[in-house]
Structures are given as C-alpha cells and as structure tokens.
C-alpha cells in the first residue's frame, strides 16, 4: 500500500473583486505566477492572482530533483510550499477561474473569465504556462478519457496490472514510464526519434526495470484502436516498413507542450510556436503587460527558470506602475 500524503489545498472559487482596478493581475499560478505574486506582494501592489489551479505543470510532475534547495521533492509538495509562501501575503487569490480574454480598456486592462467575470488591472503578468500537445492521429480524440490520457500522474493508478504505451521519450515521457513501472504490467515506449531524449538519471531508472519496458524508437503512431475504449495502437518504422500492432489498454501521450496563449492572440505578439514574445525584462509587445515562464519564448522550460522569470516580471511591472504615477 502506498504511503498516504495529505495536502491542504487552496479554497476553490474564492471571490475576486470585479470591476475593482487592481495594480496587478497575475494570470496563472505555476512557479512563474506564484513567484511573481510574492514579489508583487512585497512591493505592496494591490494584486490578484487568478488561475485554474495552483502549481500548474508542477502538479503533473511526480519527482523534481533539480530545484535548488531540495535534493528531491514531489511536484505537489513543491507547489504546496510555493502556495504557502504566497498565502503569507494579503493578496487576492482566485482559483478555479480561467481567463479567456485580455484587452485594453482606456488606460487599464480588462480580463474576462470563462464564467463571465470581469477583472480590471493597471498592469498584467501572463504566466499561463503550457499544456499537452495532441498526437493528431485517428482514434485519439474519440478515445480521450477512454484510455487516452494526457495526465500520467492523474490517470496512472487506473491502469494497475494493465498493458500501456507511452508516446514520447523526452523527460515527460520518461517520467510517465517511471510512474507506470510501479503500477502497470507492461509498458511500451514509442518515439519518432532514434533514442531517449530524457535526462540520463531517468533513463537509468527505466533500464533498471528490465524487460517490463519495451522501446520502439524511430517509430511513429499510425492510429489508436478501439470503439468504447482503447484496445491497441498501430505504429510503423519511420520512413516506411511494416506496421506493428500493440495490444494496450492505455495510451499516455507525452510528446511535448503547447503554450496557453489563446487569451493573448491578436493582442500580444506571439512567435511561430504560439509563445508570447518578451524582452529580457519580461515586457511584451503591449506596455503594461508582462509575461513569464513556459508561455513565453524564453528558452528552457524549467521550474527554476520560470520562478526566476516570474520574479523579474513582477519587478518590471512595479517599475512600470511607478513610471505611470509620475
């Protein structure tokens, strides 16, 4: 039986003040947004932190071994520690809210939520992070929630003793494999590249599981099989060759991420990947709007980098607000 942990999480749906002009609204509460919140609170800015969840992608990572100060910490524990630090300060926190649009309104900015709430801000930090990229193969969309999963840490416990496939041999794919080794019966790994692209420490851990894990490198996914639920997957060698059918009940898709920048489309400059373009002070193409973390074009998506960028964005927002007062 697994060791039980108990997490005291934020109150969901805590009220935000509508039509109250906040000095700063931070959208997203991953490492970038949470760090920005601490820096903004210390500058005594009237701040709202608004997000679907607290922790962002950190919550989807079981183990973090490269955030300074901790040799090892689980993603949810690190997120809980971040949150605890934020909650020491008197800022408004609205969890369970998704911001769907951002626009200019007079000298201020207007943000609207999926639930139709309106928030007014004198400055904004977009720290909305990234989400899983779909494979776009036949059967995938139809079988989401029927064996196709984009959240290994959430859904892995549902596949006890089953055969599964992980698509993607980067760090997120390898992390999913490590999680599944403890739970599933047999784990296949498929990637179009010729080998692992994950950190060597993860690859070693997978190698230690022996024959339980079988890799199909330089293979691509043709389609996912099943009507009511996933029954298998068809793959073939890249560049042609015979198709291979693997009988599996679960398909975990870990082939990278796409930025959550929909709210900024047509308002802020985005690069080809859809990431928000920022300068070294986290300024976007619109003065008064800053961005930080994985949603931006800053290279390397890491917790520690996102946190650093969040700090910088808050300090830049503060400098902007001071300049406005003059």
């Amino acid at each position, binding site marked *: *039986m697994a060791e*039980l*942990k*108990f*997490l*005291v*999480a*934020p*109150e*969901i*749906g805590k009220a935000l003040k509508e039509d109250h002009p906040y000095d700063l609204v931070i959208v997203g509460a991953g490492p970038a947004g949470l760090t920005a919140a601490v820096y903004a609170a210390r500058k005594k800015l009237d701040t709202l932190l608004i997000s679907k*969840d607290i*922790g962002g992608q950190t*919550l*989807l990572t*079981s183990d973090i071994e490269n955030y300074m100060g901790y040799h090892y910490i689980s993603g*949810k524990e690190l997120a809980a520690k971040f949150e605890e630090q934020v909650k020491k300060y008197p800022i408004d926190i609205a969890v*369970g809210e*998704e911001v769907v649009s951002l626009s200019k309104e007079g000298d201020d900015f207007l943000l609207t939520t*999926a*639930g139709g709430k309106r928030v007014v801000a004198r400055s904004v930090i977009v720290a909305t992070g990234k989400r899983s990229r779909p494979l776009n193969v036949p059967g995938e969309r139809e079988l*989401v*929630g*029927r*064996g*196709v*999963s984009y*959240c290994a*840490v*959430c*859904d*892995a*416990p*549902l*596949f*006890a003793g089953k055969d599964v496939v992980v698509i993607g041999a980067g760090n997120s794919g390898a992390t999913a494999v490590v999680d599944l080794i403890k739970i599933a019966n047999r784990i296949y790994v498929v990637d179009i590249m010729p080998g692992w692209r994950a950190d060597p420490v993860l690859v070693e851990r997978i190698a230690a599981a022996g024959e339980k894990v079988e890799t199909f490198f330089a293979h691509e996914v043709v389609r996912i099989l099943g009507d*009511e*639920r*996933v029954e298998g997957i068809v793959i073939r060698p890249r560049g042609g060759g015979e198709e291979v059918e693997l009988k599996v*009940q*679960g398909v975990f898709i870990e082939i990278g991420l796409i930025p959550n920048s929909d709210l900024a489309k047509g308002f802020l400059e985005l690069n080809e990947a859809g990431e928000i373009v920022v300068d070294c002070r986290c300024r976007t193409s619109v003065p008064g709007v800053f961005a930080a973390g994985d949603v931006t074009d800053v290279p390397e998506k890491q917790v520690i980098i996102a946190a650093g960028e969040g700090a910088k964005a808050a300090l830049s927002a503060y400098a902007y607000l001071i300049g406005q007062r003059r």
Partner: protein
Amino acid sequence: MALLDDHVREEVKRELAGLPGAVKLLVFTQEFECDYCAETRSLAEELSELSDRIEVEVHDLLGSKAVAEVYGIDKIPAIVVLGEGDRDYGIRFFGVPAGYEFSSLLEAIKMAASGDSGLSPEAKEALAGLKNPVHIQVFVTLTCPYCPMAVQLAHRCAVESELVRADMIEASEFPHLANRYGVYAVPKVVMNERVSFEGALPEKAFVDYLLAAGS
C-alpha cells in the same frame, strides 16, 4: 502512528478555526478493516482532535446495517459529513480522502458547518429549479490535481439542493466501479447513471449537466 504530521496539523487547525457550527463525521468500516479503512477512521479521529466542533461516530457496515441504509452506504471505507443537528446535506466520501482529496474533506467540513454552499447566485437560482433527485459520483485518484475541483463543486451542489447527493469515489479502491463506469481518466463525473463526463468543468457547465440529469 499519526497520519497527519505536525506541519499539516497546524495548517488544518488554521483551516478549521472558528467553524460556525457542529459537524459530525460518520465513518463506516468493518471489524476486519479493509484497505484504507483503518486510515480513513484514524484520519477522521485525528481531525476531531484538531477542532472541538468535529465529532466522529464509527460504524460497522454490517453491524450498523440500518444506519448504513439510511445514509445509502454500500461500500467502505466511507465518510458521511453531517452538519449542525446531524443534518445530512448529501456529502459522501468513499475511499480514503488523502492526497489532493484531503482538501475536499476540509472544504466539506467547512461547508457542512456553515450550511452555505458558496455557489454563485446564478447557480443557486438554477438549482432551485431542479425537479428530481440527482446522485453525483465523482471518480478520482489521490494524485490528480484537478479532481478536487470536481468533487468540491459536486459537494457544493449537494449542500445547495436537498435533491442532490454527491459522492467522491477513489477509483483505485473500487476497481469494480471504475470498470463498470469505464473510468480511464479522472475526474470522471457520473450523474444519475445517465449523464457522464470527464474533467473539472466550470460551475455553470457542471450545473447545466446536473439539471439535465435531473430533468
């Protein structure tokens, strides 16, 4: 050994400080305790040590058959969260509310103590028009960060409407139910056996499904 460490105990004390009313946790287990039955019972008992407004009553599923029937308890471990004067709002937990779901248990306690669902005025109005009983089952895993949103929303609806009962079900402890309802992703919400969906939806969408299930 205590389940909650000192740090978590302090946080819980803060969360539960000033509960406006009494709360009773009915814990259902059995003589030879099932997987996580002992932990569920201990968890409830440890919470009652942290707040003088929380009382715990432990029942044996077979020994207290009549009580189990009154509250519709058909599997264990189970917790029923009752408000002031043993008022049953329809809040149920099946399986141990650990991991992320621990926060759902704390929220349920706060809600039962106040009797306030905390739903928006629009959602309250919509639920007032509900015609028939709705039984919501929210399947979760303890490592799913999005699940508490679905569970807490379901519990809010239960507090708001006398016609709604809402269960958290920890999928890995009840594989037969996970199998029956085809739970391959969490959170999975099943309403009255006729409406089901995956994911943590915003309040309005959730309430719309609920009204459809109760129509």
